[in-house]
């Protein structure tokens, strides 16, 4: 073993308490950054996967051009017709990255229990396609129960799901019947009967007394149309989103289809805002924690240098160059940061495992149901914190060590008491 590593290790052991405090400070810094980072990664991934899979929004949504800007006021102008839908499905079949392309229709109207009525908003989809998308969910979200009651079925168009607030509002229970009323695309008033199969919690609390899930056929029946409002596309991997979009746009351009494609990120401003907010918070946490760690190292190294002033003078007198003195203390700092990072890794793994085993739940903002809480182990964060701590600890030692090596004379050091 190098003499310098030996001296560094033995000095660390000699000042056990001080070294231990510094190592623990580094370990806590490492663990804090990685646990918080793992939590934010869980948040991002959960929000993303919940949006894409659990709420069956898919990776891409295809609309008629102009639908998003003007479609709310006059949706019938921007409906995708049968032939267009078939052409789009053919294009999607041509890309193996695309697992599913399923039509969707948003409807609004009045829902009644026979006595009272209230407004509703509905996403009408093909139930089996919705189940296909939800089945792709993974991790703890896959265990999340999204509704109470029975699944909606392709063969039972009248089956609907109510948000729990809507069911309470209309005093309806699973198994009850009711009806929906809305103007058709031609402007005529229409009504259909419904059977309440399930209740669910709305992803947004404000809409929990208005949302309905229904079969696409029922919605088309209500609107008296065979058209759809949009097409939800599911990919084999989320990372393929942009490439798949480029492919679709290219094909639409080639075939003359006037369509636009939005990614899941573009369709989920809540995800983007939450992600941006947590990114900023993470940076603050990272900086604060690492400043504390650096100050701890600077303090420890400074005290060590002060106590070993005469030793520094002796080493210089024996012929050690100034840079060698700096290296001596940098090695000591590096060893402590490696020890601290490894201890921090153990702390992180303990917390991760404890959460995995206990499976705690929590109710996030704007969500009305408890969801699993997880902390992810993110290799990038682990490696990044390890590397950052090593570098910062080394740099933290340089300034006080340089002062000792370059600014003081050997005679002064030897005479230090």
């Amino acid at each position, binding site marked *: 073993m190098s*003499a310098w590593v030996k001296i560094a290790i033995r000095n660390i052991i000699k000042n056990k308490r001080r070294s231990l405090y510094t190592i623990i400070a580094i370990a806590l810094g490492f663990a804090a950054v990685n646990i918080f980072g793992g939590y934010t990664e869980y948040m991002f991934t959960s929000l993303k996967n919940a949006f894409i899979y659990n709420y069956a929004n898919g990776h891409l949504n295809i609309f008629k051009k102009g639908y998003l800007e003007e479609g709310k006021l006059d949706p019938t102008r921007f409906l995708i017709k049968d032939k267009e839908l078939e052409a789009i499905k053919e294009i999607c079949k041509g890309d193996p990255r695309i697992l599913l392309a399923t039509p969707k229709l948003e409807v609004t109207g009045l829902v009644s229990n026979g006595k009272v009525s209230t407004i509703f908003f509905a996403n009408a989809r093909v139930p089996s396609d919705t189940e296909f998308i939800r089945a792709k969910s993974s991790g703890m979200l896959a265990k999340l129960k999204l509704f109470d009651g029975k699944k909606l079925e392709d063969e039972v168009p009248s089956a609907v799901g109510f948000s729990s607030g809507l069911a309470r509002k209309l005093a309806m229970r699973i198994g009850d019947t009711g009806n929906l009323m809305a103007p058709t695309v031609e402007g005529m008033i229409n009504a259909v009967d419904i059977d309440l199969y399930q209740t669910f919690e709305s992803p947004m609390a404000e809409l929990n007394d208005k949302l309905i899930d229904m079969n696409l056929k029922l919605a088309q029946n209500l609107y008296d149309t065979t058209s759809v409002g949009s097409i939800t596309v599911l990919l084999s991997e989320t990372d393929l989103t942009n490439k798949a979009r480029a492919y679709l746009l290219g094909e639409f351009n080639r075939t003359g289809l006037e369509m636009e494609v939005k990614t899941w990120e573009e369709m989920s401003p809540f995800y983007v805002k939450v992600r941006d907010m947590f990114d900023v918070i993470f940076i603050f946490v990272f900086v604060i924690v690492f400043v504390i760690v650096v100050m701890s190292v600077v303090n420890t190294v400074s005290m060590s240098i002060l106590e070993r002033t005469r*030793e520094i*003078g002796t080493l210089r*007198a024996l*012929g050690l*160059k100034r840079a060698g003195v700096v290296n001596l203390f940098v090695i000591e700092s590096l060893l402590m940061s490696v020890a601290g990072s490894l201890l921090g890794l153990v702390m992180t793994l303990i917390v991760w495992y404890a959460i995995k085993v206990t499976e705690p739940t929590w109710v996030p903002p704007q969500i009305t149901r408890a969801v699993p809480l997880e902390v992810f182990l993110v290799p990038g964060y682990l490696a990044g914190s390890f590397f950052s701590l090593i570098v910062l600890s080394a740099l933290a030692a340089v300034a006080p060590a340089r002062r000792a090596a370059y600014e003081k004379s*050997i*005679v002064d050091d*030897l005479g230090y008491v």
Partner: protein
Amino acid sequence: MKGIDFTETSPIITMRQVWKYYDLGANRIPALRGVDLMIDRGEFVAVWGPSGSGKSTLCNLMGLIDDASDGYIELVGREVRQLSDDQMSEFRNKTIGIVFQHFNLIPVLSALENIMLPLQIQGISAKEAEKKATAWMREVGLGDYTEQRPDKLSGGQRQRVAIARAMVTDPSLVIADEPTANLDSENARKIIDLMREINMLKGTTFIFSTHDQRLLGRVRRHVQLLDGMVVEDKRL
């Protein structure tokens, strides 16, 4: 160091009109005043004088751990003012051995590891360094104490380790600043005898400072300092 241009008969140390000042507040205190001194190879020299006479300052300048304010100093054929700090470090490591009043052993290293240190600073392998250091441990009579840390050794034993550390690089010159000041008279005598024995066997030039006149009987030349000046330079 390679390329040193000096002959066996050249003085190992040449000092001409060397002055050293210390600034204490507004005052400038001369520690050495115009010292002229030449030390030949193989000499065993004591620099003696009362406290404050400039002995330690003279030793520091000869050991290249301090800079003269004025004057000419040549060590082993090199004018020291021409050396950069790194060159001085290398020169000290390879050419000069230093023995300190307070021993100055590294507390976390064993006796053997302390002796190995100057060799490892040179970049010599641990195996080679250990071999040479072990030989010197035996030479100074501490062959059974290789693994002991300094705090487990007596004052006399520590100083023997320090002498072995100073000698392990086969230096041309050993500077010892008051090497016996923290030892009882018997150990002080033994240390001086050890240094003299090495001087006679290896031909290494030894210069040590002391305020104890009783040790002067063991040297062949003594230089007396008073108020920063050489007042007597006697060869016996």
